[in-house]
């Protein structure tokens, strides 16, 4: 589904990611791990089209999408949930959800998708007319995933979905991610500092350090690798 | 002790430079025709106003659309004192400077609390509103027709054939030189450095112990004084102070002048002044050679100002002087990183 080859991104003179390559098979879940500043967010920002790569290629479902901007990629089925959610506080929950699907023409399809999303996150229906800024951290994360799903994406990029959330909420979100993969074949690229919960739901893992890939492989193997965990993932 | 000597050096250097320029101007003025002396005079009084404005905007970061109105204050002060009350020229010009500086201090206190577009909007309101006083109090300010100033007579010692225009040029150039000397010293002084610091990063400046508001007000007062002095010189040269000469267009022309010359640069203020005086006559020539209508001809300079403002700010935000500086930098190889890379 997604292939990244030798991807490099600069912020000014600083190289945020350097020659990163990874592959996410269709229906697979890949976790990108590493300490703060390792380049994980930069990687997602580049893939999602918010930031232009300075080198390398991104191939999505067979098509090269390297220099395309974010708003076009959304229409191709690539949804990015940034760190913190990317929820617009001044709009209501309903408006945020609606925004996620507005680029689609078919009104009936939009309404059907809304029903599906609400079924996954019933809390959103309860809070429907409230301003998004009044939501709790967990609810905001649900809203941000929900509105990403409103576009019926084939690939979901998630940036630190567990950040600042209580463990029970994190568990719920990871469960939802697993379900989405099982029931809809959704492909997920997941960035996390919380390596343990990420590797528990992922098939494969990629570890970044200072913009380079330092380890890659099966999630269980990575989780079991003591040395790796202590060196790059903290005491996860 | 060492510090005093250092300051002394800057002052001496600037004095020598000013004196040198004065000598050059003297010879130029003696060599050119009366008509060109009038142009020289115009360039001089525009320079006085522009120099103050470019220091305000370039050095201190505050934008003002009201300096045309401040020039009006200076002009009307001279007109009233010389034309109506019979004052001598020099005291009247001093008074014009002081009065305008006083009004500038009031404006400055308000301006110190405003930023960016808010400051622009408030000074715009000042520029559009002040001419209304001339209508409201026609007895004092002569209404639409304004006040007339009798031409300044050259002193007898220069001979009876000495052209009025040359004398006016000398007066205007004197004001310009005073402004140049004062502002050159300001730029290098502690106050000038404080102004730059506030422009670049207000929070940091405040944390470093600078009184931000006082710096802003000082900059406004200085620039207002220059505008008043320039306006006074304008009144003397054109022998008239009328509301029609001080519309919003004047303020916007001044803005064009400093943008064109490069914000914060005194040599740039000279470029700007030259442009403001020469552009109308160049565009007249163009209009004549293409036999354009009078409507087009009279509006051509204004159209050019608009294009300059938009073009310069989009393509070369540092103006002509900045472009010259950049060229100079490129010709001299440097090993250190550029400013942007270091950020």
């Amino acid at each position, binding site marked *: 589904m997604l292939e990244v080859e030798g991807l490099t991104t600069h912020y000014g003179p600083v190289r945020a990611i350097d020659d990163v390559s990874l592959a996410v098979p269709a229906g697979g879940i890949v976790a990108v791990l590493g300490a703060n500043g390792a380049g994980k967010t930069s990687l997602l920002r580049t893939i999602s089209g918010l930031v232009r790569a300075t080198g390398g290629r991104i191939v999505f479902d067979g098509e090269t999408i390297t220099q395309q901007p*974010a708003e076009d990629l959304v229409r191709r089925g690539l949804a990015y949930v940034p760190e913190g959610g*990317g929820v617009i506080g001044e709009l209501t929950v309903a408006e945020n959800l609606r*925004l996620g699907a507005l680029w689609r023409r078919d009104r009936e399809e939009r309404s059907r998708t809304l029903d599906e999303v609400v079924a996954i996150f019933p809390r959103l229906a309860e809070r429907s007319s409230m301003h998004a800024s009044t939501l709790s951290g967990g609810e905001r994360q649900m809203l941000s995933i929900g509105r990403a799903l409103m576009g019926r994406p084939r690939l979901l990029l998630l940036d630190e979905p567990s950040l600042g959330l209580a463990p029970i909420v994190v568990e719920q979100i990871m469960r939802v991610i697993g379900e989405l993969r099982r029931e809809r074949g959704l492909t997920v690229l997941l960035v996390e500092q919380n390596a343990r919960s990420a590797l528990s739901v992922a098939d494969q893992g990629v570890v970044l350090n200072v913009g380079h890939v330092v380890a890659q492989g099966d999630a269980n193997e990575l989780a079991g690798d003591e040395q790796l965990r202590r060196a790059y993932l903290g005491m996860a | 002790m060492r510090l005093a000597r250092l300051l002394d050096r800057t002052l001496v250097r600037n004095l020598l430079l000013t004196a040198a320029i004065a000598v050059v101007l003297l010879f130029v003025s003696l060599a050119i025709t009366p008509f060109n002396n009038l142009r020289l005079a115009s360039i001089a009084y525009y320079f006085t106003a522009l120099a103050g404005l470019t220091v305000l905007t370039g050095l201190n970061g505050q934008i003002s659309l009201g300096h045309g109105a401040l020039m009006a204050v200076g002009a009307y002060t001279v007109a009233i004192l010389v034309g109506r009350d019979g004052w001598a020229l020099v005291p009247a010009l001093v008074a014009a400077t002081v009065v305008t500086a006083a009004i500038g201090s009031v404006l400055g206190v308000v301006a110190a609390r405003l930023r*960016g577009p808010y400051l622009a*909007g408030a000074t715009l309101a000042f520029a559009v*509103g002040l001419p209304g006083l001339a209508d409201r109090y026609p007895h004092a300010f002569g209404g639409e027709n304004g006040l007339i100033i009798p031409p300044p007579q050259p002193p007898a010692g220069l001979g009876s054939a000495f052209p009025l225009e040359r004398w006016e040029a000398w007066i205007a150039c004197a004001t310009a030189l005073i402004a140049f000397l004062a502002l050159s010293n300001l730029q290098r002084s502690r106050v000038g450095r404080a102004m730059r610091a506030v422009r670049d990063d207000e929070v940091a400046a405040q944390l470093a112990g600078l009184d931000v508001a006082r710096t802003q007000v000082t900059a406004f007062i200085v620039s207002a004084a220059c505008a008043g002095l320039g306006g006074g010189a304008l009144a003397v040269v054109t022998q008239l102070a009328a509301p029609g000469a001080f519309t919003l267009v004047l303020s916007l022309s001044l803005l064009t002048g400093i943008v064109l010359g490069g914000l914060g640069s005194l040599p740039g203020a000279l470029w700007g002044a030259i442009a403001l005086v020469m552009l109308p006559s160049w565009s007249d020539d163009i209009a004549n050679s293409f036999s354009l209508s009078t409507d087009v001809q009279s509006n051509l300079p204004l159209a050019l100002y608009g294009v300059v*403002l938009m073009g310069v700010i989009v393509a070369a935000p540092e103006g002509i002087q900045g472009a010259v500086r950049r060229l100079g930098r490129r010709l001299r190889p440097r090993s250190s990183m550029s400013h942007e890379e270091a950020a």
Partner: protein
Amino acid sequence: MSRFVDLTLNGISNGMIYAAVALSLVLIWRATRIINFAQGGMLMITTFIASSVIESSGSYWLGFAVALVTGLALGAVVERVLVRHVEGGPPLNAVIATLGLLVLLQAVAGMIWGGTPRSFPPAFSIRGYEVSGRHVLFGPFDTFTVLAVLGAAGLLALLFRATGVGLQMRAAAFDPLAARLQGVRVARMYTVGWALAALSGSLAGLLVAPSVFVGPNTFDAILVFAFTAAVLGGLDSPVGAVVGGLVLGLSLSYVSGYAGSSLVTLAALGILIAVLMVRPEGLFSSARRRRI
């Protein structure tokens, strides 16, 4: 007493016009965080165009329609060609760029239509209604003014609250990055925002035209009034623009009546300064008080 009533009615009518221009300033500020100093010049051009169309075709409504349409187009063109380059940069650049446009537009108007003021025929009578034997300072054209501006404001509100495009525009204004991630073509939304703002401005120009002789400098003061009204109401708030316009219109009407019409602009300056010193975020702003 009757003078007071006259001044009040006149203030309401003028206030609606200021509100319409203030509304366009607010729309642009919300979308792109820029004060469009050229707004007065833009609406002047569309009004001049309307004047020419009316003169040559004899139809007021045709001129009216043409003014609105050219307003839309002018707003879109200005955003794409000029404003795009200064969006998101230092605020000083946007100020200078829009001022440059103002100067150019004034010059162009002078070139095409000359400096002599023109008259502009109103669609409805400007003669005041007759109330108990005398004519008040409020006639059919003033009724039209009030209804037109309220109608336009209402339509805009409907657009923003109830349509998809409106939602996308609001999203682009609040959080352009998040909006992009939801497929919103942010740049296009900015263009639409500027076009709508210019439309509102054109309407104001058409409504003010009959009462002033239409010359290139008459519109300088309008910008001052609109800016004051917008700041008074809160630059973020369209409702504030309408209320601010009304309050300003009334205040200036009283000043004009009791202190002299040439002091009106200075009075606006006074109100502007007072608001900026005391409550800079305006009456209706939802933004937290921030140091301007």
